[in-house]
């Protein structure tokens, strides 16, 4: 298993897609944070929204740094589906014919990769938040715990979503279909369900992800803006998400992984 994990690690290290997705994650973290001080400032001048002198609002900017988690999901999908796309699955399963060990090492390595994406991109998000907030002289300082809380949420989201992605990529062997359908599901179908059937909606992945992101490892301060009560708490949300991943992985093992490798 250690050897298999090393092999999986090398596959990521040497694949250009891995680094491309990292750039995407960083880009999303920057885009999610940099415009926010301006938006908040602008809102404040037009409606009574609260101002950047409120540290809670500044926290809200920093906490958006962990926004790139969708790329951890895509990474997970590629880790398995990519093997079928490049037909490297043959070499992989020849060197490690026990398919469940291959899946196990991929789950672990993808989770580590997902955490890496999220920690790096969140770091960039913090930097871009700080730079953007720097344009507003009256902006408050954030609460110090926002950094550790956001990093914890980011790492958690990276690991869980990468695991979910591997399970999905095993189930749906086509990389394109797996990525496109999970994006469609997350960003369109689920949002509609959540809109019309909120009681079901809060148990669906997007809401669970939102719930998970509100994890607090230090302090209990709220970020001040609309952490909706529609979301479950961080801990139950995380466990349900892992439950989804386990269910997909079990389904994948009993169907997809049994099938012949071409």
């Amino acid at each position: 298993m250690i050897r298999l994990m090393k092999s999986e690690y090398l596959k990521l290290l040497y694949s250009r897609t891995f680094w491309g997705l990292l750039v995407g994650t960083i880009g999303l973290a920057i885009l999610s944070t940099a415009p926010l001080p301006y938006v908040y400032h602008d809102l404040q001048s037009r409606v009574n929204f609260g101002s950047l002198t409120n540290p809670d609002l500044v926290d809200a900017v920093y906490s958006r740094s962990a926004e790139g988690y969708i790329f951890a999901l895509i990474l997970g999908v590629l880790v398995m589906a990519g093997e079928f796309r490049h037909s490297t699955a043959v070499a992989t399963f020849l060197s490690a014919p026990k398919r469940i060990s291959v899946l196990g090492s991929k789950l672990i390595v993808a989770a580590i990769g997902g955490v890496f994406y999220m920690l790096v991109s969140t770091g960039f998000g913090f930097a871009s938040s700080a730079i953007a907030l720097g344009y507003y002289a009256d902006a408050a300082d954030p609460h110090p715990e926002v950094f550790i809380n956001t990093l914890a949420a980011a790492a958690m989201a990276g690991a869980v979503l990468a695991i979910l992605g591997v399970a999905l990529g095993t189930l749906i062997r086509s990389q394109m279909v797996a990525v496109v359908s999970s994006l469609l599901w997350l960003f369109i179908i689920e949002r509609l369900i959540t809109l019309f059937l909120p009681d079901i909606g809060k148990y669906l992945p997007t809401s669970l992800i939102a719930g998970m992101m509100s994890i607090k490892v230090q302090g209990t301060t709220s970020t001040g803006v609309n952490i909706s009560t529609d979301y479950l708490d961080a801990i139950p949300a995380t466990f349900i998400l892992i439950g989804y991943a386990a269910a997909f992985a079990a389904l994948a093992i009993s169907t997809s992984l049994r099938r012949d490798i071409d």
Partner: protein
Amino acid sequence: MAVIEFRALTKKFGQNAAVNNLTAEVEQGRITGFFGPNGAGKSTALRCVLGLASPTSGEALIDGVHYREIKDPLRKVGAVLDSGGFNHGMTGRTSLKIVAATAGIKDARIEEVLDLVELTQAADRRTKGYSLGMKQRLSLAVALLGDPEIFVLDEPSNGLDPIGIAWLRGFLRKLADEGRSILVSSHQLAEMQHTVDDVMIINYGKLIAEGPIADVAKGRSLEEAFLQLVMPK
């Protein structure tokens, strides 16, 4: 002693039996040629041997066990398949490194196999730019990585130039002389006539001839024997 055994192996795709009740053995230290027309079921049978396809019934064994039960498969069996591929964005050397890692094979061995298949010069180019023959050499390099005692090769000469084919012939001979066993499929009968010790011929998934080449050819060339067996008048 049999190193590879097909025991009533049947593999169906829907109603169509690609391999139909195949029983045959590959002997140790010999080169066994696996022949049959297009679609006869050669690749399917070999994929069953390698645990990539699950038999519908019967089994295929290596040294008495299923491939999936072999502890360190790369050190036991080297395989080249027609369907295997490489990540086009990676170099040949990286592709080897990734496979080597799964068996804890040292970097020095990667250089050795690159040298053996004469790919050292192209090793740092992306496989996207490889010619058919270069990809085939890289597949052979993967098969050689673990220095295995058994080889399962599906059309390994596919895409090789005449120099490569002659090299492969000598190379397989050398491996067999060292006591290794080789099961190799091919359509190049004239070429294989001088390479193989034993033959297995299948048609429509069924075994139609098996044994030492002299017994099957009975004084004819391998090609003549094949044509008469596959298309009897």
